[in-house]
């Protein structure tokens, strides 16, 4: 209980600092939203008027305070560019990004655990070395590169899908998920390789433990020992790693959304930064930060749950 309170406090502090940093970044970069909103032919008076309307004539701390109090009341403000409430704009995009994260995470779990166990149980030395080397290579391929190659092979050459097209879940759930498979895999593949490496290492470490020798000397077969004792113990560190992965996958979507032109939060974030659409950027940054902090929090709890020896304070 005390732990949860402590974590909750950390969460609030983190979000506060993140939102403050994002806010300050906007004070530093050149260009203000009025040039975007009024174009190149507007008069200086019109710009000054708009600046006043948006509250830019107020001192920075006052503006930050106004934003913060509105945000805490659930009012994310209105997009400068689109003249729409930020909350309305984010709804569908958050769902798309979240779906992409979910699909990618599902791939990571479903593929990495069987593969990792397989890699961990192989006893042929040259094959083991080959797998380790291959794993190391796959791990270091950046997701955007896998994405580009996937677009080229499956989109342009094989024409399985139209690169650059996307069907939102509001139109067709199935088609939407279909369009998410390749981007989700692009993010998942290096993650899978990392998890496999970790699981393989954990299995090897467990196999050297005394209890394995004891079990074997009792007459238990190798497969039996693996299944009944080793896998269970080896999975412990992997579970926390996977939980942390969920946070990293979410941030990974920002880049992969550009490659596959998926209209999620990432694309909106980048466009809003170049448009100096401050309310949108601020809202997205805070939401992403909250997600990462919360997932890490969940990982800690999960760790405690699977291994009762660990007590969190």
């Amino acid at each position, binding site marked *: 209980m005390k732990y949860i309170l402590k974590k909750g406090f950390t969460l609030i502090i983190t979000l506060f600092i993140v939102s403050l940093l994002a806010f300050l970044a906007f004070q530093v970069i*050149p260009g203000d939203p009025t*040039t975007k909103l009024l174009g190149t032919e507007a*008069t200086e008076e019109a710009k000054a008027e708009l600046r006043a309307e948006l509250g830019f004539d107020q001192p920075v701390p006052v503006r930050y305070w106004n934003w913060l109090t509105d945000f805490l009341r659930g009012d994310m403000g209105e997009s400068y560019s689109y*003249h729409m409430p930020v909350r309305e704009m984010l709804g569908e995009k958050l769902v798309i990004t979240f779906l992409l994260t979910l699909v990618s995470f599902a791939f990571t779990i479903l593929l990495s655990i069987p593969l990792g166990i397989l890699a961990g149980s192989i006893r042929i030395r040259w094959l083991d070395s080959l797998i380790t080397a291959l794993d190391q290579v796959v791990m270091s391929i950046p997701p955007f590169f896998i994405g580009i190659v996937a677009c080229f092979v499956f989109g342009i050459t094989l024409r399985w899908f139209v690169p*650059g097209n996307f069907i939102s879940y509001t139109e067709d759930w199935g088609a939407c998920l279909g369009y998410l498979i390749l981007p989700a895999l692009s993010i998942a593949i290096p993650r899978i390789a990392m998890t496999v490496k970790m699981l393989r290492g954990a299995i090897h470490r467990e196999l050297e433990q005394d209890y394995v020798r004891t079990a074997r000397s009792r007459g238990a077969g190798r497969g039996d020992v693996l299944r009944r004792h080793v896998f269970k113990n080896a999975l412990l560190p992997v579970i926390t790693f996977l939980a942390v992965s969920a946070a990293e996958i979410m941030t990974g979507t920002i880049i992969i959304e550009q490659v596959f032109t998926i*209209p999620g939060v990432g694309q909106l974030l980048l466009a809003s930064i170049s448009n100096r659409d401050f309310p949108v950027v601020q809202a997205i940054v805070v939401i992403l930060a909250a997600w990462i902090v919360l997932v890490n929090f969940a990982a800690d709890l999960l760790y405690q749950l699977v291994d009762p020896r660990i007590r969190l304070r």
Partner: protein
Amino acid sequence: MKKRILAVFLAVAALTCSLSACSGGATTQTTTPSDETTPSSQAPHANELTVGIAQDLDDSLDPYQMTAAGTREVMFNVFEGLVKPDADGNYVNAVASDVNISEDGTTYVFTLRDGVVFHNGKTCTTDDVLYSFETCAATTVNSAVAEALSAITATNVQGNDIAFTLSAPNSDFLSYVASVYIVPADYDQQATQPVGTGPFKFVSRSVQENIILEKHAEYYGEAAHLDKVTYKIYADGTALFTALDAGALDLVAHLTIDQVNNLTNGYQVLEGTMNLVQAMYLNNAVAPFDNELVRQAMCYAVDVDAMLAITSEGHGTKVGSSMYPAFGKYFDASLADAYPYDPDKAMELLAQAGYPDGFSFTVKVPSNYQPHVDTATVLVEQLSAVGINAEIQLVDWNTWVEDVYGNRNFQATVVGFDSSTLNASGMLARWVSDNSKNMINFNNADYDAAYAAAQNTVDDEAQTAYYKECLQILSDTAANVYLQDLADFVAVHPDLKGYEFYPLYVIDMSNLYFEQ
């Protein structure tokens, strides 16, 4: 494969030949080589059009607040003024059925057309027209339009006639009237749910996904042929091109020559011009560009033809001054050759100017406009041959607008200028020495006088002569290194007919139809 290469070659050859035979603004057609399955062999196309655009409509949709060229390009189909431009650059009656201009050019009488219905079902009245003019004058982001409207000293309404009296004659007044889109009075949702009188009505906008327009069934004129137009938004030109090549789109404009060459889906490619003046704009107030000899040396050192050959396989029209060919009356093609490529002469002029060993400068280029970046890259190479070292600094668009356009904190930049007010003065007013948009700090008394004279005359011939004088001065003083009006390639579905190039940055959807 060989066949395809041959076909590409022929297509390019056809493009090049027909281009050289036509003057600027004209259109040429060619068909791209096709795969075994051409879209035309399929069932008749639904009466709906999907257009691909590589930029989001991420500004206000309010007719007086729209700033992005891309937004104006789309909303041209939704909004109309009392008059509107046609494909030849003339102003034709739209919401007004008749226009009478008094002899002295100070009184304009517009007759409101009967039966003009807004997209929300309301009938347009003279009150709506007056409201539109008042709102536009008060809120427009275009200072030139605001200034032109401020010259209206009296407004009289008699029946369906609306008379505007101007304090002084303004031969461009109709072009400003065309910018005053007519909207229903006291409707306050224009920024997100625009309502106008055009042939298409606005249905919806999904951020970074699409914009949907539908045919306005109660349109007073000839109704649009298409029932629905969907603009699909792509994050970048590459994604847009792949979707186009896969046949997912019916029309995509502003393609590059490389994309045209790589198109394999059997679509038709039309060629027009972008209607802008691309140049290396020089800050005439900072050294070394405050020296006319240096600017002229730059012009001699740059080989525009070679640049065009490298960046666009020779497509594009050389301009030579601040006017593009679509303004046929004012465009002077001879200025394009005022500074033939002559590196020796350039070096001679540099020596005369006190830079025998050349000099170094920075050229700021907005990174989001690839054609300008490509052009700048070639120019830097060409200038180095005469000892001028230019360094490209890529900046994002907002930074460019604030730093270069607003604060004039630059030595040189490569961009394109168009006429935001649909008239020739939109190209020339900005170089008047005290104009607030005179980014290059051009300061020439003769130019100011010629421009003022052009503005003050009602005689069309005299005005044309004054404008031409302005263009000549810009060329003689080498105000900028003038380059070209970029080629504009449009790929359309083989069954789609009726595409017209405008002398403006717009695509008119109302004349498009699918041949069954």
